[in-house]
């Protein structure tokens, strides 16, 4: 075999690793019943592939070959270590007899394995701190270093959270399964929340100097697509649509010097039309299912914005109506605040101010910088400059992100008198 074909085969192995390693891992976890053993088996299987495939050619079904080799290597490894730990022989025998060789199986269980992996990483018995890194590590194949960088924390912290999560999965015996239909809506909520949090972390970083971290958002969108392919549920459609419609605005959302640009001032010609088309189609499909929830309603709001040429010609009555629906589905003071903004666009800033003052009086949003920034904006538009100044200063005292702080400072400086 020539050097060229060897290199070609190696490249092919790399390509298969990128495309298939998560599915192979997902199946190995089911067969071996252990995350760490499965990861080790996965690495061993690819090591064998690296050696054999350039020489013997790539097997007809590489994924099944890799699972089969990984399973065999794991059983073999347990047998070899039996002299140190007798229980391993029992375990090896158990795995050998209770699972069949994947080469003799069809691919139909593969999708289920992938879903099992997602539902296990997002199990509600794991903390949110653990669900997110577990999902990014095991399902998305990001390294702990990459996850740490994205969440502005130390790799050791992320590694520790993953180790703890795996220990809980093993010790508390969290099963590797897709929840039964009766529990699916509740469990899916947790999965969607994890995906949405990953997206938001990438879209509006919670602190730090840079406003967006695009990689996390694209991972979240990829997860959304994967979920939708595995489980056609309207709320998955809704969440994917919401992420795509928000992502479509990314190029217009920050100025060249990294400053925040409000929806009102964004250059809409910069919006990504392909993402908007896909998002709008998904929203329509989700809405027509009549089984949609809060993600779909939020996506529908984003779709109204996406289809409007500018703020003035936006269908604000429809947006207010959608917010009413959202508040019914998922009451929250932050949604009330967003509704107040839409009402102000429909009926004028005086009505908006009344709503925001009522919300602030209620207390829950008193420490939320955007509530004060919104109040400041209404006051500014009504010419109540002293009140606007006080509210901008409140907001500035609470805002953590540099670009948001710069935005508020700019607004303060622009106030007359």
């Amino acid at each position, binding site marked *: 075999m020539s050097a060229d074909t060897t290199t070609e085969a190696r490249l092919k192995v790399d390509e298969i690793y990128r495309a298939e390693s998560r599915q192979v891992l997902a199946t190995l976890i089911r067969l071996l019943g252990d995350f760490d053993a499965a990861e080790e088996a996965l690495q061993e299987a690819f090591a064998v592939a690296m050696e054999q495939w350039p020489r013997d050619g790539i097997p007809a079904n590489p994924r099944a070959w890799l699972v089969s080799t990984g399973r065999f290597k794991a059983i073999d490894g347990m047998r070899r270590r039996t002299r140190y730990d007798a229980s391993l022989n029992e375990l090896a025998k158990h795995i050998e007899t209770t699972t069949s060789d994947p080469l003799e199986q069809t691919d139909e269980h593969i999708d289920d394995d992938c879903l099992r992996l997602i539902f296990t990483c997002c199990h509600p*018995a794991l903390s949110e701190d653990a669900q997110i890194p577990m999902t990014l590590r095991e399902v998305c194949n990001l390294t702990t270093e990459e996850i740490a960088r994205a969440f502005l924390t130390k790799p050791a912290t992320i590694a520790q959270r993953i180790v703890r999560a795996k220990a809980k999965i093993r*010790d*508390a*015996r*969290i*099963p590797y*399964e897709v*929840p039964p239909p009766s*529990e699916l809506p509740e469990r899916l909520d947790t999965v969607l929340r994890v995906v949405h949090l990953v997206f938001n972390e990438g879209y509006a970083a919670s602190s730090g100097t840079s406003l967006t971290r695009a990689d996390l958002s694209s991972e979240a969108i990829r997860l959304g697509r994967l979920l939708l392919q595995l489980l056609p549920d309207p709320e998955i459609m809704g969440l994917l649509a919401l992420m795509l419609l928000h992502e479509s605005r990314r190029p217009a959302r920050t100025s060249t010097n990294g400053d925040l640009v409000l929806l009102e001032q964004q250059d809409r010609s910069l919006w990504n039309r392909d993402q908007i088309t896909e998002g709008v189609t998904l929203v329509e499909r989700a809405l027509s299912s009549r089984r949609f929830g809060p993600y779909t309603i939020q996506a529908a709001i984003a779709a109204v914005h996406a289809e409007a040429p500018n703020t003035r010609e936006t269908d604000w009555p429809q947006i207010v109506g959608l917010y009413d629906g959202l508040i019914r589905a998922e009451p929250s003071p932050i949604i009330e605040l967003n509704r107040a903004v839409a009402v102000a666009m429909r009926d004028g800033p005086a009505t908006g101010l009344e709503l925001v003052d009522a919300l602030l009086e209620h207390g829950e949003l008193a420490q939320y910088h955007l509530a004060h920034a919104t109040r400041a904006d209404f006051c500014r538009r009504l010419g109540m400059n002293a009140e606007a100044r006080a509210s901008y200063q409140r907001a500035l005292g609470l805002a953590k992100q540099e670009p948001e702080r710069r935005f508020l400072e700019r607004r303060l400086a622009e106030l007359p008198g």
Partner: protein
Amino acid sequence: MKYLCLVYLEETVFNAFHSHERHAISDEATAYCDKLQKAGQLLAASPLHPVETATTVRVRDGKTSTTDGPFAETKEQLGGFLMIDVPDLNDAIRVAAHFPAARFGSVEVRPMKELGCAD
């Protein structure tokens, strides 16, 4: 796998129920435990006397000290337990979720170690 389900509740919350409600909850708990027992999932279960009856024991430097009261003073107190044997955590969560006190208290689900406590 064996799990110990620790049932925590605020005694004042439970005592605030009407006596017929308390009896209904108690009957429901007893019936539920019977059902679990028949299904072979229940190893042991019992309500506990209130925390005022608790004594905490420690031995330090060979000396036994006993103090009045529970190990930790919290608003919700350990009110009883169920020891169950089910295949995995999802089943344990299902069992815990159907226990009446889960509706007004909390149930902590702890997997029990099969081997010694050092393992």
